[in-house]
């Protein structure tokens, strides 16, 4: 009785529940959901809104009284809402039916899409054919659309839950699905079978009047109850889409994290004006700055410690180059690491485009290639050394070959020239020519002798353990006379107790004589020639022989070339340019190295490192 008096409130709640459900469905973002339910929920939402409208119009009728235009709209809302509901039930039943042979699939096979419009048609025709259009029409809608919907939806929800059990269980949706299913089932009966009294079966018996007789409560109350239960459970079920969104975000973040933080390459996202929007762990670790100091900072400040972007010719900026030339270049840059030390990085910048195709940001990737560079540099150096030593060997061979060939002819020329010169009288016109020939032939013979000595050197013959100081002393004795006549002071600083070295005495002497001669020639005004021997401190296992002069020094540009064959700074005719190249080769054959330290105007210091004799 209470309810009968406040039916308007019942209808309010009834309508409200469904309308809220409809709104909730339509405002829930469901796009790109993997849940199949998401694609058909709009039908339920449409049902909710239209049926809610229907009940509110009922409420309006109670409040304001009957009105034929309201009746008309109400009738349409009713039928349309049940069409939506039926379509929803049909679809959910179908999508949850596996293609296996059971009673469910056979039912599903009848539920084609044509069914809904067909039923709508039947209702229309049936209604038109009947005497009481409104009555019959709405009753038919209830019997043929609403009633089956309840059953289909209940079955569909149950099946859907089972199919998505793992997710639904983790989200604790079980109770919601049960409530929704049961509520729809009951609603199907209450709204689908209990129609207003009519004069056809079953409405002549099973109708709203009977319901009140049996229970004392209008059926609309129970329907409203179902509506509330449905709305409540459906809105809770809708949260699976929120979960899905956050889950997707979470997943994407994790992926990002895994990919960008697990690699050794440094990645930065840069704006067009070189500010860092984002940097991965590798980048942060490779600088001495904290994440806060890096974000928003300029990339060139962080990696290059500079105040402006990298520019040619030092470092080409891959970002600038990308903007200018439209292609990605890979450049080697020098970056500074955590401790401020330099390291080599291969950098590249990739553009990020917006929808209009304009570049908005850059992805800057850098990879530490220090080891590779070092190896490359070493390799290049080794290659150069190899080439150099091959060149030397070739020249040495050439020189030796020439010397051998010249040897005999020269000896003969020399001999006859001397013999003739001895017999000619001073006033004879032939005296000058013959004396000249003799003098020059003597000169040639010294040259050839030197070459021949060196030429045997390459075969590594005649190396024996010997005392460095003894060799140095005998070598110096050969040039001692020269030092006196050319105003050069000879200083010997020969170390005590030096280990012996394995060497060819003759060749070693030649080396020292050659260096000493060069030194004397460099000291045009006189000076000091220092020869020092010691056990190397910087290179253990080696003996050092050092020859220093106070002459005019060797300019830096020449220093690299000085050991090249045929390179000479002496005037034409005063030097062959072969001395130092052969010195270099002899030292090499003794498994040693020779180094030069000199500055223009400040003299020169040659240091030979020779390995100590073992065994």
């Amino acid at each position, binding site marked *: 009785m209470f309810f009968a008096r406040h039916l308007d409130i019942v209808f309010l709640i009834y309508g409200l529940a469904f309308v809220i459900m409809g709104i909730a469905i339509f405002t829930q973002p469901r796009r790109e959901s993997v849940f199949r339910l998401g694609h058909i929920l709009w039908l339920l939402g449409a049902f909710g809104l239209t049926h809610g409208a229907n009940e509110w119009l009922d409420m309006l009728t109670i409040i304001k009284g009957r009105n034929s235009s309201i009746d008309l709209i109400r009738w349409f809302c009713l039928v349309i809402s049940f069409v939506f509901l039926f379509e929803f039930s049909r679809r959910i039943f179908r999508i949850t039916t596996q293609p296996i042979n059971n009673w469910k699939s056979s039912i599903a096979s009848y539920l084609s899409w044509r069914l809904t419009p067909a039923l709508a048609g039947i209702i229309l025709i049936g209604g038109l054919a009947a005497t009481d259009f409104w009555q019959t029409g709405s009753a038919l809608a209830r019997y043929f659309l609403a009633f089956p919907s309840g059953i289909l939806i209940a079955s569909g929800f149950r099946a859907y839950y089972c199919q998505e059990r793992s997710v639904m269980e983790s989200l604790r949706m079980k109770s919601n699905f049960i409530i929704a299913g049961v509520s729809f089932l009951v609603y199907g009966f209450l709204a689908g079978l209990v129609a207003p009294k009519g004069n056809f079966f079953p409405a002549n018996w099973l109708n709203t009047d009977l319901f009140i007789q049996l229970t004392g409560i209008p059926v609309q109350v129970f329907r409203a109850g179902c509506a509330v239960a449905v709305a409540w459970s459906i809105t809770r079920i809708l949260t699976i889409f929120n979960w899905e969104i956050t889950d997707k975000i979470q997943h994407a973040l994790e992926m990002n994290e895994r990919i960008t933080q697990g690699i050794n390459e440094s990645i930065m996202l840069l704006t067009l004006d070189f500010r860092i929007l984002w940097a991965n762990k590798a980048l942060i670790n490779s600088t001495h700055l904290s994440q806060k100091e890096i974000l928003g900072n300029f990339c060139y400040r962080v990696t290059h410690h500079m105040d402006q972007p990298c520019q040619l010719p030092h470092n080409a900026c891959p970002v600038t180059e990308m903007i200018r030339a439209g292609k990605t270049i890979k450049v080697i840059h020098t970056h500074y690491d955590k401790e401020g030390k330099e390291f080599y990085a291969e950098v590249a910048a990739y553009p990020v485009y917006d929808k209009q195709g304009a570049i908005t940001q850059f992805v800057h990737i850098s990879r530490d290639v220090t080891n590779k560079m070092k190896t490359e540099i070493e390799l290049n150096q080794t290659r150069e050394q190899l080439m150099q030593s091959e060149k030397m060997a070739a020249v040495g061979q050439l020189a030796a070959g020439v*010397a*051998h060939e010249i*040897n*005999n*002819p*020269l*000896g*003969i020329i*020399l*001999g*006859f020239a*001397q*013999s003739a010169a*001895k*017999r000619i009288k001073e006033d004879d016109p032939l005296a000058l020519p013959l004396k000249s020939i003799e003098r020059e032939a*003597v000169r*040639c*013979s010294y040259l*050839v*002798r030197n070459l*021949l*000595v060196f*030429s*045997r050197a390459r075969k590594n*013959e*005649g190396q024996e353990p010997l005392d460095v100081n003894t060799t140095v002393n005998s070598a110096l004795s050969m040039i001692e006379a020269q030092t006196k006549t050319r105003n050069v002071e000879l200083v010997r600083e020969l170390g005590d107790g030096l280990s012996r070295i394995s060497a*060819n005495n*003759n060749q070693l002497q030649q080396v020292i004589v050659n260096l000493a001669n060069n030194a004397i020639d460099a000291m045009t005004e006189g000076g000091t020639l220092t020869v020092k021997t010691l056990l190397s401190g910087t290179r253990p296992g080696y003996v050092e022989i050092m020859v220093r002069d106070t002459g005019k020094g060797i300019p830096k540009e020449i220093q690299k070339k000085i050991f090249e064959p045929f390179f000479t700074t002496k005037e034409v005719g005063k030097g062959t340019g072969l001395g130092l190249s052969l010195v270099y080769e002899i030292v090499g054959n003794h498994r040693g190295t020779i180094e030069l330290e000199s500055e223009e105007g400040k003299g020169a210091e040659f240091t030979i490192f020779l390995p100590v004799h073992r065994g």
Partner: protein
Amino acid sequence: MNKIKTILIVDDEQGYRDLLHRALSEQGYTVLVAAGGPEALDILKRDEVDIIITDMKMPKMDGLDVVIASRQLRPDIPIILMTGYAVEERVQEALARKASICLQKPFQMKELETALQSFLIT
């Protein structure tokens, strides 16, 4: 040894034979020349040779071979070697067999004279 009267030159190079023949003849020695080892040995068997001056690098019989063969005929005869290189094996071996002296080519005439003188002192 008192005096060197006859010198045997062994060298495959005509120029050297002429040079040494002329230079030493002018100094009063009797100079015999051979172009190679076999010829030298013939001369050695036939004539009174006081000293042999031989080149090292010769085809067929080189200086060492000459030294060995000569020593068989005349065990004590002084031998002067002429060579482009002094450190070579065969030269070392020849010196070991008491070939006495090694002259490094290209040498000056006074070096040869000094060498010859040294034998007179011994």
